[in-house]
């Protein structure tokens, strides 16, 4: 009997939901575990807000908007954000480096990492995803998904790897990163919100390890410049939430047809992405991964 515990964290003016599942533990044991990890995730998310909020006068994004880009070169271990994220277990996978002219190496700052991601997203989407909004640097569109993916990786994955739980997911504002231990049969079922009915869903996405993000016309905090208005809502599913989020925003900005063309022209995206679109007329359409998958994986046809 699988038990699941859920906790809610309010940060960045968004409710984040954290869930842990276990095939063997009791609800009480799982509650103890989740109450241990929840404050750490909350701290991380609030530090992300401190660093990246364009609405805070003391954030690094605000500094950059005033011409001070020095956070790009800051050593991560000097500054608030990755300090607590690190605590001896920052995954090597994301330990970027900054090489100074004098040859010294520093840990890349989160600010620089996000800046690079924004630039990469701009290139990948042929400018439909743009780090500049109304003439000012605005990483808002990528920070939430990025923060959820990093928090999931740094605080929840260790619980799975150490066997303390069998599955863990973190979501906020429609962006969710999930994972399941490969020894468990658990799957995450995620409803795609019906934009016309607050208590309804239009599709259910079944997934184990991956990210799912939804972008829509009514979403707050997303500064999207739109070239077309044929989509009301776009949900994108991929291996990594940061990019799923970026692609979902792109779909709203570029429209369904251009989005499909962008994905078709990019082998990595075509191989990875699935999507559910709600069109302006209320009809639902889907995007399936482009290439046939190896026999070891199981991607049933859309029903």
């Amino acid at each position, binding site marked *: 009997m699988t038990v699941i515990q859920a906790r*809610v964290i309010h940060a960045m003016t968004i409710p984040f939901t954290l869930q842990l599942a276990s095939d063997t533990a009791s609800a009480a044991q799982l509650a103890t575990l989740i109450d241990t990890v929840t404050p750490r995730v909350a701290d991380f998310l609030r530090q992300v807000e401190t660093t990246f909020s364009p609405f805070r006068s003391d954030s690094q994004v605000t500094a950059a908007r005033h011409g001070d880009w020095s956070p790009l070169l800051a050593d991560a271990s000097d500054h608030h954000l990755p300090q607590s994220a690190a605590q001896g277990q920052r995954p090597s996978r994301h330990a970027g480096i900054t090489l100074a002219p004098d040859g010294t190496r520093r840990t890349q700052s989160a600010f620089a990492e996000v800046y690079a991601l924004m630039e990469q997203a701009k290139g990948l989407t042929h400018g439909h995803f743009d780090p500049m909004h109304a003439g000012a640097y605005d990483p808002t569109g990528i920070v939430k998904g990025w923060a959820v993916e990093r928090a999931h990786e740094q605080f929840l994955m260790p619980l799975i790897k150490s066997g303390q739980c069998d599955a863990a997911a973190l979501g906020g504002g429609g962006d969710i990163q999930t994972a399941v231990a490969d020894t468990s049969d658990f799957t995450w079922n995620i409803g795609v919100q019906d934009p016309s009915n607050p208590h309804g869903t239009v599709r259910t996405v079944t997934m184990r390890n991956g990210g799912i993000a939804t972008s829509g016309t009514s979403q707050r905090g997303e500064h999207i410049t739109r070239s077309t208005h044929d989509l009301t809502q776009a949900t994108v599913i991929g291996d990594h939430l940061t990019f799923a989020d970026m692609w979902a925003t792109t779909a709203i900005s570029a429209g369904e047809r251009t989005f499909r063309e962008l994905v078709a022209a990019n082998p990595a995206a075509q191989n990875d992405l699935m999507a559910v679109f709600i069109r302006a007329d209320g009809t639902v359409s889907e995007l399936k991964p482009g290439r046939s998958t190896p026999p070891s994986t199981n991607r049933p046809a859309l029903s």
Partner: protein
Amino acid sequence: MKTFTRTAIAIVAGLAIIGDAFLLFVKPHLAQQSTSTGLATAGTESGAGSTNSNDAGTTDGTSNNSDSASGSNSADSSGTASDSSSDSSDSSSTLTDGTYTSVSTPNEYGEIQLQVKVSGGKITTITTLKVPTHGRSQSVNAQAIPELTERAISAQSADIQFVSGATETSTAFVNSLQDAINQALNAD
């Protein structure tokens, strides 16, 4: 007439193949070599077959005067940062002059490097450098646990744990679908 049509199709197809080959094999290497190719929204209409969109973008500070110059090899061709007149905040610590290279860990879409030029203790240029992935096989990164990607989209809701939507805010959370699901899970 039939022959003419066939010839026309053959020519078009031939040109398309040559174009694709250029985008796939030649352009990425050009992009890799040149430190700055100006504007990020490079007008390659069809990036078909190419993993990357081949543009080393340039972003400057508050003003957006990216120059869409040709792919000259000079990192100096990019815009200058920190030209805002209302610039009040100086960084507290003085930066050593020279070029800093900031390298993120590669992801499934490639690798991004930032080259930040400091002159007179201030950042003058930020150049984004895109290093294309070599071949498609790298598109899947090894994660901490194996990617057992079992995904499906089905028509209706059974037991869901999360809702992915575009409207969720803290003020609207109470009585939301996600709120109800969370409470039901904890009550089990």
